[in-house]
């Protein structure tokens, strides 16, 4: 049953393109909730965990108001590889993947909503959209929250709001994240400055792989740090305006690069494409750098025969878990680099090759 969620690197909702999709990859909203009368996961008993899981599962399965069906998976029933793929797809957090005893998840049919049970908090409602859609993602999360609050006794106080295990989530329990591709700002050495400015505004900027600040493929995640003392609308408005400023800066940097060094940029982009389509060994690091450059080439219309969504898919599917799923066996790291090169070559060469063959036939 889980297999249907593991085959595709990116779900269909990711295919949408709009004015922001040259820079913003996806938007994510997360609401942290807990049930009154139970200890938080770091201190609770297995029995409490079970009761919480049952209460949440029932609330979702029995509700007639939810717009989609949800599939339930207990972490302990998934293989390590399956868990890794779910993490690589951002459907579950690395922390939940480690919770073999008590953790579980409910996943919507379209993979846009995942509800994590007994991670750091009893409940984490996560909604994702393609591109820059804070409002849309929040409305979806809010609607699910409103349905669940009818049957689940949320831990809430008038003073501190929704109670969470960690005081960094207290209040609204809301974390809004925007995932952005910022190659020009990175290339021109402006990222550090931006990260510093963001911190002062109560925002965090992190690399795509979460905790560490090192970024892979020039992908950054901007999210709010403050959850208490500000209403949801204000938190969203703040992050909206901050993200818009970063988008504007990235666009300016791209324009300047094109103006000053178009030829060098074109060279860089095509070298990356050459590597991806011809290399026989690719580390995730090199693949990520090349994919980022090709993606920039597509966004600047230097490359026009590869859709941007294909690159998004490659960035997810070139990760270790996916690769091993692709060949259906456990691979040692060195072997992964070889398979990665093969897989990327197949994906990127496929389309043009079919076109050429079609032309030959005529």
């Amino acid at each position, binding site marked *: 049953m889980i297999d249907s969620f593991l085959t595709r690197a990116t779900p269909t909702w990711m295919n949408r393109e709009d004015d922001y999709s040259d820079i913003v990859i996806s938007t994510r909203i997360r609401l942290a909730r*807990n049930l*009154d*009368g*139970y*200890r*938080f996961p*770091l*201190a*609770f008993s297995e029995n409490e965990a079970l009761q919480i899981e049952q209460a949440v599962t029932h609330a979702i399965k029995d509700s007639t108001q939810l717009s989609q069906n949800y599939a339930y998976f207990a972490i302990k029933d998934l293989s390590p590889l399956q868990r890794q793929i779910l993490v690589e797809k951002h459907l579950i957090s690395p922390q939940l993947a480690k919770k073999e005893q008590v953790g579980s998840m409910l996943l919507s049919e379209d993979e846009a909503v995942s509800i994590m049970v007994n991670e*750091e908090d009893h409940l984490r409602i996560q909604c994702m959209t393609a591109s820059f859609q804070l409002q849309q993602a929040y409305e979806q999360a*809010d609607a699910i*929250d*409103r349905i669940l*609050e*009818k049957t689940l*006794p*949320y*831990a*809430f*106080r*008038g*003073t*501190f*709001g*929704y*109670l969470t*295990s*960690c*005081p*960094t989530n*207290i*209040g*609204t329990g*809301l974390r809004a994240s925007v995932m952005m591709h910022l190659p020009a700002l990175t290339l021109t050495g402006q990222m550090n400055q931006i990260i510093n400015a963001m911190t002062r505004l*109560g925002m965090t900027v992190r690399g795509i*792989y979460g*905790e*560490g600040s*090192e970024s892979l493929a020039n992908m950054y995640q901007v999210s709010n740090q*403050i*959850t*208490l*003392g*500000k*209403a*949801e609308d204000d*938190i969203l408005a703040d992050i909206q305006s901050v993200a818009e400023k970063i988008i504007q800066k990235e666009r300016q940097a791209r324009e300047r690069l094109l103006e000053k060094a178009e030829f060098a940029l074109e060279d860089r982009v095509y070298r990356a494409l050459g590597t991806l389509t011809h290399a026989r060994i690719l*580390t*995730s*690091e090199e693949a990520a750098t090349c994919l980022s450059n090709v993606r920039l080439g597509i966004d600047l219309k230097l490359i026009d025969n590869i859709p941007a969504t294909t690159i998004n898919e490659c960035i997810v599917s070139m990760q270790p878990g996916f690769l091993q799923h692709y060949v259906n066996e456990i691979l040692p790291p060195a072997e992964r680099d070889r398979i990665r090169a093969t897989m990327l070559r197949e994906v990127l060469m496929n389309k043009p090759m079919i076109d050429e063959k079609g032309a030959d036939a005529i």
Partner: protein
Amino acid sequence: MICEHCKQRNATVTVTQVQNGQKVEHHYCDVCASQFHPFHAEFKQEPISIQQLLSNWFGSPSWQQKMDEKQQVQTQQTCPQCGFTYKRFLKEGKFGCPSCYDTFSEHLPKLFNRIQASPQHSGKIPSTYNNRFAIKKQIESIRKRMQVAVEDEQFEEAAKLRDEARELEQQLQLEGGDVS
């Protein structure tokens, strides 16, 4: 050539770095080189956990750590629901259960002032909370009327009000809230 790092094995890997326009060459053995590979380094180095960072945040700065006895007693305070002490919270950076917020409520505004926008929630409220709040208010007003009825020696009326209040209290318990 011997590896620059372990100074034991033969150097088989040459790493060229450009620093401030100057080319620098390093020679490592394959064991050490694999550790320097930026990608491996990312996973091998155990990053400072957020809790460790937070516990520094939550605790008092080092120049204030010489606590007087009164404060010592405060950090010994224990949450009746989960057994967490405030000291344990400072250490873990996380609370044990929702009741911790009630138990340690006097310490929290100071803490939230530091890490949040303000110590007062101003966002969404669950609709059931409004309901519970409304029921609590209703019970309060019934109890007042009951008092008046008793003072006026209208015992039949008072009994009726008492039953009404009991019913609401039961409803409140069903809503999952504390009656207090």
